[in-house]
């Protein structure tokens, strides 16, 4: 590494370390957290100064395809754009929800409705990528999603389970990006089946298994020492992570059949409901970031008929999740996010009775983890075309989540190619959403 490269990479941490050291010397503060391995005030490698956090974990519910804001959480009763969807008064004074969310109408006191989310990406792949990473999709780099940032900056809490899990979604959007492979989410294809292939093969005793692993380590050792790069280490990490997971006393967290019948029934029997239940079990075991995906929101045609199919499972699972988390005391430090890549046009596409992509003004939800419930943040005009108050860009939205988690939104980290990146790009946290 040239001196210049070294300086560039070392710049931020060393300056901060210097300032912290100075403060310690002059005021006698901060020494304990810096010197102690027990400290959580700095990231794992001690380089990233974390901030006060109101949330420890996130359940991120992703409505893939672009959820219609008017037909869900931002109805505009009486507007020409509203179409046939009726709305209901919720238990929060200023919040109405569509007729498809009768259960959620009883839980909106826990939720902050962000009505003024604004994106500049109108295509699915680009929009989903932007929502997850706060950066635009490029050919030259892959950015980490929020779950990877959280585990990278704040570290995992449960050492034996993965810190980042993606349910129903695969690995396209939730991603470790340019970070090491251990920040990739563990994908769970079906919540009902839980974690597959996590036990030793039949007929392989523990002794034989351990011996095989030992042999593998020996064989790899020389190679690892000679080529001690991130990629080679990542390969080894993968085995170690898999092993610690196999032996984890918390493996039951992946098995939703351990839940009482009544709880399973409350979340619903569809993949999204089961995914939410699994997410709750995982965060209870200190998994820090769980994403659950609900597909099918791309309602270009027959929007109003499709709402009757798409909304009820979400209404049920989200109400069950919020009520259940609250009753367990977990909503205090668990942030529940409901996000989508864009909204849908207020104007109804009359030929197909549908709504098309609309990134300009759409709705996402935040709840728990220090977020103020029962409020609406931001406002669109009477027909839902334009943001008229408190615009929240995708980057601001993600910065707000990061702020709740105590991740420094100003901190620049350098990718392997030396480019600077921030957890929510240029986003500014909206502190007014917190209690």
């Amino acid at each position, binding site marked *: 590494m040239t001196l210049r490269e070294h300086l560039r990479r070392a710049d931020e941490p060393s300056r901060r370390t210097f300032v912290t050291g100075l403060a310690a010397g002059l005021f006698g503060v901060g020494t304990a957290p810096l010197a102690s391995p*027990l400290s959580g005030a700095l990231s794992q490698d001690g380089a990233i100064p974390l901030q*006060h956090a109101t949330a420890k974990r996130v359940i991120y519910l992703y409505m893939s395809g672009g959820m219609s804001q008017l037909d869900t959480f931002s109805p505009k009763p009486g507007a020409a754009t509203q179409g046939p969807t009726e709305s209901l008064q919720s238990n929060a004074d200023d919040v109405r929800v569509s007729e498809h969310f009768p259960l959620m109408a009883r839980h909106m006191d826990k939720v902050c409705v962000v009505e003024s989310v604004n994106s500049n990406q109108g295509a699915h792949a680009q929009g989903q990528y932007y929502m997850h990473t706060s950066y635009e999709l490029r050919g030259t780099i892959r950015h980490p999603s929020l779950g990877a940032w959280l585990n990278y900056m704040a570290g995992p809490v449960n050492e034996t389970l993965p810190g980042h899990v993606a349910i129903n979604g695969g690995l396209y959007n939730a991603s470790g990006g340019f970070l090491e492979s251990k920040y990739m989410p563990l994908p769970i294809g079906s919540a009902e089946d839980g974690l597959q292939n996590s036990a030793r093969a039949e007929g392989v005793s523990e002794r034989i298994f351990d011996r095989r692993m030992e042999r593998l380590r020996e064989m790899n050792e020389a190679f690892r020492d000679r080529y001690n790069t991130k990629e080679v280490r990542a390969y080894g990490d993968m085995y170690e992570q898999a092993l610690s997971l196999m032996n984890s*006393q918390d493996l039951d967290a992946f098995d939703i059949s351990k839940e009482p019948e*009544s709880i399973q029934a409350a979340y619903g029997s569809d993949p999204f409901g089961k995914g939410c239940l699994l997410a709750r079990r995982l965060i209870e075991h*200190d998994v820090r970031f769980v994403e659950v995906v609900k597909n099918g929101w791309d309602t270009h045609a027959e929007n109003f008929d499709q709402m009757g199919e798409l909304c009820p499972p979400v209404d049920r699972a989200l109400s069950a999740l919020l009520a*259940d988390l609250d009753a*367990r005391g977990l909503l205090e430090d668990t942030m529940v996010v409901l996000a989508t890549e864009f909204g849908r046009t207020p104007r109804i596409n009359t030929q197909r009775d549908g709504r098309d992509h609309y990134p300009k003004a759409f709705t996402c939800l935040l709840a728990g983890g220090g977020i103020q419930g029962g409020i609406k943040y931001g406002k669109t005009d009477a027909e839902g075309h334009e943001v008229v108050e*408190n615009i929240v860009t995708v980057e601001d939205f993600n910065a707000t989540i990061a702020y709740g988690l105590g991740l420094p939104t100003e901190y620049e980290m350098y990718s392997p190619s030396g480019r600077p990146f921030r957890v929510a790009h240029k986003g500014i946290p909206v502190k007014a959403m917190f209690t």
Partner: protein
Amino acid sequence: MLLSPLLLSFAVGAEAPAVDFRKEVLPILKGRCIECHQDPATNSGKRPKGGLRLDGKHWILEGTRSGPVVVPGDPNLSTLYELIALDKDDPDLMPPNSDGLSKAEVETIRTWIAEGADFGDWIGAPAPGETSPDTPKLTPKPTGKLPRIVQLYIELGEGVTPCTPNQLAAAAGEHGMLKPVFPGSPLLAANFPSNQGRTGTDHVRGLAGCAEHIVTLDLGRTRITDEALAVVAEMPRLVKLDLRQTNITDAALIHLFGLNDLRSLNLFSTKVTDASIEVIAKLKKLETVYLWKTQVTPAGIGRLRELRPKLRIVHTPDLPAPERGGPTEDESGRRRRR
């Protein structure tokens, strides 16, 4: 002579420009040029061709690295005009891979430049750091205050000397984790992550060494017994206590007398009964208590509500009723899997 500037300006005013940018030039740019010469942010990240953007006044006047592309008043020095006026077989002709603009379009742009390249009131994509006047003025984001809990930790931490690393290590023991609530704060959050099943009363006793500093204590899902709470009695600044899914009983709660800053008490899935109601009611600052899956009866909850009308009492959650046919499907689903 004195009159001449006035006359000149009068002359210019009278001879209204023949080309209106918005009506005549902008449609050409929009139709034939901007697709390749625009802000990467509106073009899936694609950089503008030749480093030239034609989507805003600022950008058109800025030109490229090699210099301006529009020299007001002089089409022949303006690359923008030069490249659209080339012969049809010239490889440098703009737009590329086409027969170029029509003669009338080329002439419009030439005249517009010759007349001084007046943009009228058009600004288009804003210069860096400026906002477009086309987007409505929005209320600025309220900067907001610190979250309430953080303010509380700042107040409670005033004048408290931090624990030494040795004290921290001794207090955490082999299973515990002690973290400052935020950098620089002497106050601590204590928990036993991924070791709950192996954490018993003995592992918790060590916390006494940092008892003055602990503001949140998570003993959820551990194997602690009632005696473990004796150490909690020594934590005067405790704000949040989580005892969910433990075997503690009413006997544990007597240790909570005197916790005058306790805001949140989680007793979900413990063995406490109505006998604890009076104790809970006496925690002066308590804001939320979690009592689901305890042995507290509806009558007990009613009594607590009477004693502390403002306390948030969380007990049986408002869970959705089962779907019709839901549990049956569930049942068959599981059978299939086994």
